[in-house]
């Protein structure tokens, strides 16, 4: 078979018209140089350089640098060569095979990608990250937690007296834990509390103002202690870190962009992850209390409190918007009612915590399953420390945030 083409010798870019003859294992090329001398070149088919991607390009290359090039007049001419040497290596590649699947291949690739991504996203990565976080030595965890605590407390006022009192209260509770847990009260109007890795609990004084019974404080501390026992915050960080590495390697972008991506696309999964941790902390905190013979009902009354404040704020907002309280009934479906409900109740799916209603529901279910013969200790000593704590109370509270982490 003979094909007209252009030959480029690798020394200059000059295209020389040539005739290409296909033989069993070689291509012979006949062309003329500038002094009109007839020249020829023979390409061994097995030394033609690989074109591992099928594009509309119309050339093949041969040999070591500087390569010789054969440029054809059309893609069809190149196809004739490929068809002539169907087994030759220069046009074989996994992608070329894949591309012959056409639409079916693309769709199955797509389904494959989505399935693999979903698997890694929801199972693989959390699992690896979780195992990693669990395997970190306790001493190092405490070190990290201490870093966090120092960084955080730098900018806060610590209430030393109440910190001592709450620590005594905590010690009196006698909860089971592998960690030496230390509790700190921070002066703040905000209603909040959180736990740091390695055994640190921070309680905002705003939250203390809301408490009326020692059981409630016991419930709060048991919840936070469970976060520490289960290494929840370390596991969350570790998952974020793993997501970062995954995204960075998938996008090849080690810098800024992927971190934005993570924050957005990781949000929903992170939230559900964190809601599960909160539920776990509620239930394990409940068990910790029962095991230490403390009545766990305080936990429920704490959430009931959040719930009632919430609905009070809802009604106030409704009033401000010129609605009366009946407008907020479940049945009322006006845009305003919807707006008020939306503002005051972040939907659970968008929240880091389960909604108080659900927390009360599953805790009451636990309560009903408790052995009725179970007795709780007379909490005189807890009450003593709790009353001390309340004595030093200050009044103003900012209830724009309700709850604890």
């Amino acid at each position: 078979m003979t094909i007209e083409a252009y030959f480029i010798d690798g020394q200059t870019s000059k295209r020389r018209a040539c005739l290409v003859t296909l033989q069993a294992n070689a291509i012979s090329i006949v062309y003329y140089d500038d002094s009109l001398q007839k020249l020829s070149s023979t390409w061994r088919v097995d030394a033609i350089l690989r074109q591992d991607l099928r594009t509309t390009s119309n050339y093949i290359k041969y040999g070591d640098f500087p390569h010789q090039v054969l440029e054809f007049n059309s893609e069809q001419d190149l196809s004739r060569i490929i068809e002539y040497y169907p087994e030759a290596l220069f046009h074989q590649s996994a992608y070329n095979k894949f591309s012959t699947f056409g639409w079916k291949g693309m769709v199955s690739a797509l389904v494959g990608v989505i399935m693999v991504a979903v698997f890694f996203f929801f199972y693989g990565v959390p699992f690896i990250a979780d195992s990693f976080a669990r395997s970190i030595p306790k001493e190092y965890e405490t070190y990290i937690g201490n870093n966090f605590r120092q960084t955080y407390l730098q900018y806060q006022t610590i209430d030393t007296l109440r910190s001592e009192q709450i620590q005594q209260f905590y010690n009196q509770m006698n909860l089971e834990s592998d960690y030496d847990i230390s509790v700190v009260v921070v002066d703040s109007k905000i209603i909040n509390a959180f736990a740091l890795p390695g055994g640190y609990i921070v309680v905002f004084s705003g939250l203390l103002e809301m408490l009326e019974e020692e059981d409630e404080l016991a419930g709060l501390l048991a919840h936070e202690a469970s976060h520490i026992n289960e290494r929840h915050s370390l596991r969350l960080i570790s998952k974020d870190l793993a997501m970062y590495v995954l995204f960075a390697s998938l996008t090849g972008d080690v810098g800024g962009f992927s971190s934005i991506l993570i924050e957005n696309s990781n949000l929903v999964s992170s939230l559900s992850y964190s809601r599960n941790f909160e539920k776990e902390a509620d239930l394990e905190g409940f068990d910790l209390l029962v095991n230490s013979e403390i009545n766990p009902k305080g936990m429920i009354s704490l959430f009931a409190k959040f719930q009632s404040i919430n609905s009070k704020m809802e009604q106030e907002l409704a009033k401000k918007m010129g609605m009366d309280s009946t407008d907020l009934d479940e049945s009322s479906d006006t845009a305003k009612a919807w707006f008020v409900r939306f503002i005051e109740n972040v939907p659970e799916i968008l929240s880091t915590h389960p909604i108080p209603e659900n927390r009360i529901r599953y805790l009451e279910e636990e309560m009903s399953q408790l052995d009725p013969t179970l007795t709780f200790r007379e909490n005189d000593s807890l009450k003593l420390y709790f009353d001390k704590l309340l004595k030093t109370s200050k009044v103003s509270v900012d209830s724009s945030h309700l709850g604890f982490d």
Partner: protein
Amino acid sequence: MEEQGLNSDTSNLSPTGTEGAQVTQKPMFRPHHRITFHGSNMQYLGLALYNLLLTVLTLGLYYPWAKSAIRKFLWQETEIDGSRFDWHGTGKEMFRGFIKAYLFLGFFFLLINFGPMFLPPSSVIWVVLFSYLVILAFVPLAIHGAMRYRLSRTSFRGIHFGYRGNLKEFYGKVSLDFLFTILTLGIYGYWLQINARRYVMKHSRFGDVSAKFNATGGDFLGLTIIQGLLIAVTIYIYMPWALINFYKFYIENTGLEQNGKTYYLKSDARGGDFLWVLLKSAFITIISLGLASPIASLWIHKFYIESISLSGEFDFDAIQQTEKSYKDATGDDIADILDLDF
């Protein structure tokens, strides 16, 4: 097909082939060389999906191969004066550069993003600051390595491109400009960028053809001020036109020097057309939930690259291979380490 046919065909073959016809026309007006791009949307989409699949399956390890294949596709589908460009880089080469860049940069990015959690509070600020400095110092090295790699792996009609910049010299120039930039509170940054580009262009080769970049930092600052004002006055509506003006600034100040004569590239891109391409791209990306985003990016690429033309007097047939001697001069291991591409 038969042996005999060869002889008769050979005798019909004019010694200079179709080139002979063109030679006689040489003194006459020669039309501009235009770049055309032939990449098919579906082919590119398929390639992108294939790459995504393998990248996910290999937890990102396939990424350099994916990038190499995409580059090969873009190069081979780009045509000027009847011939295609070629990309000689391989996934393996890119993987080596990728690992080096990854280990190095990744470490410092991790330090910046997650260091505050693990490090003692008092040292965090210093560690983060140091990490940023290291990454900043890495930029000229990255540009140098990428230019060396990209140009040496690009060819046209068998002639390889090449980069002959000297890393030490480049660092010297850039560091001095960087110092001025700090002293002038950032204003000299316009000169920093353009001077770096001038240096890189000046040392870029296409066989025996050398490149140059003609604009100055002052031109760039002027352009930025005018375009910035127009964007502000029109509340961003002018954005596509401004982007095109910047693109034309880069393209039309780039010249190729052949036989002592410099031919500047031209771009006839227009803001209105660009806006249309952007809208089309946004539309297809949104209705496909992002799946067609490779097609959108291909449209934009095609729009940019097909706007480029070059004077017809530039002779694509008369370029000499020079890359070989260059390879001998610097083909050592240290240079290889700098062959970073990411």
